[in-house]
């Protein structure tokens, strides 16, 4: 498991956001039919940004993400991508699940090939492209393993490779590192930062870990802190910079978020 050392200064400038999708919710009601979870949600995810979403369990983080993916139609209001209302899943919005998102009967490579096949890439090119993506997430040599032969961290790398191989315009991540131990998680965060350098996709990253949100996000959206304001947005002082963890500015934002979560 090779990872770039997290100690190197890693203030990562991301490429200009020409390709990322803009995701907007206006006065949206989210949830399953008959069981709304969030109401009056207004949110504008800027093209190319990393928006971290935090909130207590059950506050609707996953519901928000599934709505943005198009899997869950809004019960009211408007959900749009680049100004056009979302009609369903697909359309270049890839979803990374917490765990078990891989098809267990397909090898790591075959899992990564699936979005390429759906995107009608010729069979001859798929294999090379999938192997290349697996290499990029540090899984060279594991191409032919089935998911249950991979560790939890490795499976999440395959999911990341699979999501990015489809060249999405938005990457929606649902607590992707939530089931990993602290050390693996830190490594995966760094890996994510590294691979995001090569894409301009907009990222919505759901987590219950405030530190993870403050490391990865350009902004943090706090969900469900009060019914009057279902979404509170906080700017992150120095995104994707490990050294910023102990600065006074980050500490202040962290305290603010933790207090809102506890209330």
């Amino acid at each position, binding site marked *: 498991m090779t990872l770039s050392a997290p100690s190197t200064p890693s203030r990562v400038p991301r490429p200009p956001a020409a390709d990322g999708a803009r995701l907007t919710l206006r006065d949206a009601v989210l949830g399953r039919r008959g069981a709304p979870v969030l109401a009056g949600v207004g949110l504008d995810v800027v093209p190319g940004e990393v928006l971290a979403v935090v909130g207590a369990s059950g506050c609707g983080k996953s519901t928000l993400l599934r709505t943005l*993916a198009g*899997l869950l139609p809004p019960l009211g209001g408007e959900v749009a991508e680049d100004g056009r209302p979302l009609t369903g*899943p*697909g359309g270049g919005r890839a*979803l990374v699940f917490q765990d078990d*998102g891989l*098809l*267990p009967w397909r090898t790591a490579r075959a899992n990564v090939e699936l979005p390429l096949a*759906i995107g009608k890439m010729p069979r001859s090119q798929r294999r090379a492209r999938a192997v290349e993506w697996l290499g990029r997430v540090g899984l060279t040599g594991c191409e032919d393993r089935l998911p249950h032969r991979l560790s939890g961290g490795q499976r999440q790398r395959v999911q990341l490779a699979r999501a990015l191989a489809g060249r999405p315009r938005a990457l929606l991540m649902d607590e992707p590192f939530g089931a*990993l131990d602290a050390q693996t998680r830190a490594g995966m965060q760094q890996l994510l930062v590294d691979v995001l350098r090569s894409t301009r996709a907009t990222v919505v990253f759901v987590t219950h870990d405030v530190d993870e949100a403050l490391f990865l996000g350009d902004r943090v959206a706090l969900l469900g802190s009060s019914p009057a304001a279902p979404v509170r947005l906080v700017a992150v002082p120095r995104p994707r910079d490990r050294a910023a963890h102990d600065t006074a500015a980050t500490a202040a934002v962290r305290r603010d978020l933790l207090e809102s979560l506890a209330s």
Partner: protein
Amino acid sequence: MTGEARAYRYLLRTVSLLAFLGAWQAVTALRVHLWVHFEQLPTVVQVGKEFGHRLGTGAYWQDLGDSLDRILTGFGLAAVLGVAFGVAIGRSRLAEDLLGPIVELLRPIPAIALVPVAILLFPSNEQGIVFITFSAAFFPVLVSTRHAVRALTPVWEEAVLTMGGGRWRVLAQVVLPGALPGIFGGLSVGIGVAWICVISAEMISGQYGVGYRTWQDYTVVDYPGVLVGMVTIGLLGHLTSSAVEFAGRRATRWLPRTEQGADRGAIRRRARTSPAPVRGSLSAPEGVSEDRPRTDPVPVPVPDSATPGR
């Protein structure tokens, strides 16, 4: 599993079989008459002689071919249609509402009770027997497919949908492969009941076939012949269900089963004999705190040691 352990298991199975035949030979040759009467039952030797004689006749092989032909046609149709209907009912509410009630009403009827209907419906006995075999295997396949389809992890489907896949893609890449373990469960049950029904139907209305021959031998009081028929049915049934099991294991090799499969005994033995802690998946709770690939102590690529024999 090591070759030695495998040889040991085959030895046990052979001993078991020989003990059974020995007991049979003993009670019949000694004309045991406790409350159960063994003195009329042919001995193993008599049955073996008769078997050897029949193997040399063309009639035996014709019966065998006829029965196999009937069961494979009926079972094949049941497998295809059972999976198709099971998937439809499991996936579509409309299909469930339209087909569900009919299925639930027809399902409890034993296939062999359909003989009168089969005689009315079909121009010849041949098609009637295939129909009865089909009816026997169809429902187990349908029901297990329906359950397997409904038990699929929703995340798999959502993953394919968010990649831009449509419903056919979901069907081909998620529903069918994901339901295969359940489908093969239904096929295993199905091939068993198909044999019961093909033999019964042949006994009632067949011309040729193992079941027909067995019944004929009974009516002329040829008991060794009857037992040859039974042994033939047993062997054919074992052969076909082994084939289904084998195909099932080949098709579902992705299931993570080596840890809890047939190797359990070996692992337990090893854990008992060696003082050192068994490494890997046994010692640590799965993937919670440890980010290590789940490696088995011994990789077991041979499929036939992966599931307990049924």
